[in-house]
């Protein structure tokens, strides 16, 4: 059904973009040493994982409808 198709396409592309920026942010954060910076790193990693999940879903590899 084409609504699903649209959703998948949008989700896939968007999550690739978001994931890329998340990684960029992570790299930018990497050098910093404050407590909050360390936490931010962890959060960014998890965020990237989330994006990967969405990509896999959009690719139809995981997740049932």
């Amino acid at each position: 059904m084409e609504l699903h198709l649209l959703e998948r396409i949008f989700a896939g592309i968007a999550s690739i973009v978001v994931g890329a920026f998340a990684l960029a942010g992570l790299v930018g954060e990497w050098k910093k040493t404050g407590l909050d910076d360390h936490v931010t790193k962890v959060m960014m990693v998890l965020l990237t994982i989330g994006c990967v999940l969405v990509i896999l879903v959009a690719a139809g590899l995981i997740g049932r409808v």
Partner: protein
Amino acid sequence: MAAHAITMDDAAYAEQRDIRLLGFLFFLISDSVFFGSLIFAYLYLRNSVPIWPPPGIERPDVYLAAVNSVVLFGSGVTMHFAMEGMRRSHMRRFVGFMLSTIVLGALFVGGQVLEYVKLLPVDKWAGSTFGASFYTLTGMHGFHVSVGVVFLITVLVQTLRGTYTKDRHFGLTAATLYWHFVDIIWVALFFLFYIY
């Protein structure tokens, strides 16, 4: 705190900031225990029955959820860059990213409402163990997101009022951490309810 942040000398401010930061992180930890025990309950109920979701209920639509997740994750990234902007005292970038974060957050809440509207005919809160755990967890997360949006609007306004400066913006740091926290909780929920 902002009031005497201005009057305080830097050393004292740094100490104050460390204390508040630690306190806030501890708050996030105990908040994740909130979610953790609800997730434990969900997994327990789920694994104590042979068929999941219970007969007569089909899983919610994963693709809508995927779109919604991307929106929230995106807001997380924009929030991060807003923070970067503030650190470089690059006000226009900060305000732009801040606004986009708020909008995306609001969009996510809207998406959740849509999800509920679609799901309610199928399964009520009190309808089954699935409904119970799904609405409780996503509802609690939705509540956190809504609070987060309000939080963000407040700090944005405060910043425009000049409360926060390049070196003294703990409120902003807290808002960022909180928002990231809400994001990664959603990573877990998205996986547990739509994929696992």
